[in-house]
């Protein structure tokens, strides 16, 4: 099954059940607000549980734009998905620290691979989910130990 779907909007694509969002080098207010909206729409429509926001192209990031990116993570979380920022550049990281901006609440990695590993999202294939669902309900009423094992998976 080809799980790579490309969305024309903002160049986002789904791979390994994660939404990968490339962010442009130049981040102005109009762009970033539009991007945030597009991400949330995709998360809601596709039911994807992991979002990788690729910021490796950004060389200069002002504090307000960073706070918008940080807010993306919060909004994505409200939709029940996890997010990871990929590839903050050293200059950006150093400036954000020097600008004394609150950096809590965001998850960052260096490569997309690391990001996929962290997100490790559950399968969202409807057929598979149905099977798993019925498996769980059968075992619930038969053997409590068996149902524990299923949920651990």
């Amino acid at each position, binding site marked *: 099954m080809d799980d790579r779907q490309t969305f024309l909007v903002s160049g986002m694509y789904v791979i390994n059940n994660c939404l990968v969002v490339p962010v442009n080098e130049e981040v102005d*207010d109009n762009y970033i607000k539009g991007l945030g909206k597009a991400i949330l729409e995709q998360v809601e429509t596709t039911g994807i549980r992991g979002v990788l926001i690729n910021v490796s192209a950004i060389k200069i990031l002002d504090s307000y734009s960073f706070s918008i990116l940080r807010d993306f993570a919060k909004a994505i979380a409200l939709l029940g998905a996890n997010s990871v920022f990929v590839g903050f550049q050293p200059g950006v990281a150093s400036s954000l620290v*020097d600008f004394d901006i609150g950096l809590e609440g965001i998850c960052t990695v260096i490569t997309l691979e690391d990001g996929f590993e962290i997100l490790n999202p559950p399968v969202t294939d409807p057929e598979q989910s149905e099977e798993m669902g019925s498996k769980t309900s059968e075992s619930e009423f038969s053997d409590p130990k068996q149902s524990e094992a299923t949920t651990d998976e």
Partner: protein
Amino acid sequence: MNKIVEDISFELSQPSDTAQVIYSARHMLAQIGFDEVQQCLIATAVSELSTNIIRYATPGTVTLRIIHDVDRTGFEIIAVDQGPGIKNIQKALEENYSTGNGLGLGLSSVKRIMDAFEIRCEPGQGTCIITRKWME
């Protein structure tokens, strides 16, 4: 009185205008001889001042200069607008991003990372910010 070696001004009226200011700033900073980390830091200061104009006081002008003073070279940013001004400059300069409160102007951070920082403003008559960083 500093000697102006190079001087370039940008009119800012829409978000996409900030990109060329930042690009030019990085180019000038590299010319002066600032290292990559310093270039990013000072260009971020340029970005803060430019985006403030776009968000709160458009249109405005940002001027970037390479300046000389006796035996040192530096980078000067002059951000001018005809916007509403800042009612409480003291508060704007004291704010701390870590608390999550404040005006969101980044001015206290710009002031901290630059060597010199002046702000002149009359409420309702615009703001003028001049800031400098000298090459060590």
